[in-house]
C-alpha cells in the first residue's frame, strides 16, 4: 500500500523516466553481450555448463568464456562448445581427434566428454562422421565456477524467474533517486 501511494505521488513523468532508465540498463547489457561476441568472434561468448560430462573439470553451473578466431585451428586437447544441427543444446566436450585438410581449409573433429566412456560419434548421428568448424561455437579459454548456477535455478523454476523479473521491474519503477 505504501509503495502504491508513493507511485501515485511520483506522477506520470517520473514513472516514464524510471521506465526509461530500466530500459537503458537492459539495452546496455545486451550491447555489452553483443560487443563481447564481436570481440571473441562467437555467437555466445559466455556459456553455462549444463551437464556433468566434463567433470571434474567443469561442473553444472560453471561459466565458460569462449573465443572462436577464424585463423586459429582447433587442436586436440582443446575444449570446444559445439551445436549439432539436429540438436538445440550446445555441448561442451574435448577434442580428441583433429584432421586438418589443407585443400579445403576445414577441419574434422571428434570430441569426447572427459567423464564419458565413449566418444561423441553416436551423438553426431549416422549422417555426420565428425564435427566441422561450422558446428563449433568456440573453444573454452576461461573458467569461472558456480556463477552460472543462477540461470540453471531460474530455468528449473520458472515461477522464480517471473517473480524475480517482476520484482526487479517494480522496484526499478518505484525507487526514487
Amino acid at each position, binding site marked *: 500500500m505504501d509503495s502504491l501511494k508513493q507511485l501515485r505521488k511520483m506522477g506520470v513523468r517520473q514513472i516514464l523516466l524510471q521506465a526509461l532508465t530500466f530500459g537503458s540498463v537492459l539495452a546496455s547489457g545486451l550491447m555489452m553481450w553483443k560487443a563481447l561476441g564481436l570481440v571473441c568472434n562467437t555467437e555466445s561468448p559466455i556459456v553455462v555448463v549444463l551437464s556433468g560430462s566434463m567433470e*571434474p*573439470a567443469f561442473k553444472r553451473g560453471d561459466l565458460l568464456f569462449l573465443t572462436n578466431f577464424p585463423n586459429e585451428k582447433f*587442436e*586436440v*586437447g582443446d*575444449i570446444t562448445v559445439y551445436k549439432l544441427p539436429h540438436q538445440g543444446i550446445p555441448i561442451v566436450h*574435448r577434442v*580428441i*581427434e*583433429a*584432421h*586438418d*585438410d*589443407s*585443400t*579445403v581449409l576445414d577441419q*574434422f573433429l571428434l570430441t569426447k566428454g*572427459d567423464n564419458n566412456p565413449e*566418444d561423441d560419434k553416436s551423438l553426431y548421428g549416422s*549422417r*555426420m*562422421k*565428425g564435427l*566441422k568448424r561450422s558446428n563449433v561455437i568456440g573453444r*573454452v*579459454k*576461461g*573458467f*569461472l*565456477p558456480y556463477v552460472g548456477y543462477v540461470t540453471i535455478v531460474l530455468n528449473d523454476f520458472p515461477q522464480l524467474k517471473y517473480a524475480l523479473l517482476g520484482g526487479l521491474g517494480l*522496484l526499478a519503477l518505484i*525507487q526514487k533517486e
Partner: protein
Amino acid sequence: MHSTYNRISTILSHASTALMVLLGLVAATSYLTLPSAEPGTVDVKTVQVYQERYRPNEVAWVRFDLDADLRSLWTWNTKQVFAYLVVDYHDAPNSTLSANEPGADGAIVEGRKAENSIVAWDRIIRRQRDGRLRIEGGRNKYPLKAVGKKFFGAEPFRARLMYNVQPWVGLLTYGEAGATKNVLEWPKAQSAMQ
C-alpha cells in the same frame, strides 16, 4: 535515501564488485606466474596395424613408455591437469578418404595432404602427488583409426605428451611435456583385427 533496501543493495553490489576484482587478480597473477613442466620422455615401443574386419580401414595399436613429472604444474590455483598423449601423422600421399569423409557437402579431393592428430591416451590428474607419470608398456585407450584407408605408406609419425592445466578460476593453459625422439614408421597391416 538510507532505507534498508538501499543499504542492502549497496553492500551487495560492493561485495560482488570486490569479489569479481579479486577473482580477476587471481586469474591474472596465476596466468603471469604460470609454471611449466620439465620435459619428460616419450617412447613408442611397438606399433601394430590391423585391417578392420569387413571395412577397408586400418586401426593401429601402440605400446609406449612415459616418464614425466607434472607435479610442478600445481599452484594454489590448479584444479586439475589433463595429460594426454597425441599421435601426429600425415596422410599417405595418395590415400583416399572413406570413413571420415562427409556426405554430399564435403569437398575433399583425392590426393590431399592432411594432418591428423589423435589422442591415444589420456589421464585426469587431480592431486599433485599423482602428477608423477611413470608408465611402462602402456597401450592406447582409443584406437588409432586411419582417416584414409591405410596408414601404410603414410609419412613417419611422432607422439607427444601434452597437458592442459585447469584452474579454479581463470584461463586454461596448455603445454608440452615431452615427445618421441626417434622417427616412427607405420608397419604393414596384419590381416584380421583381433
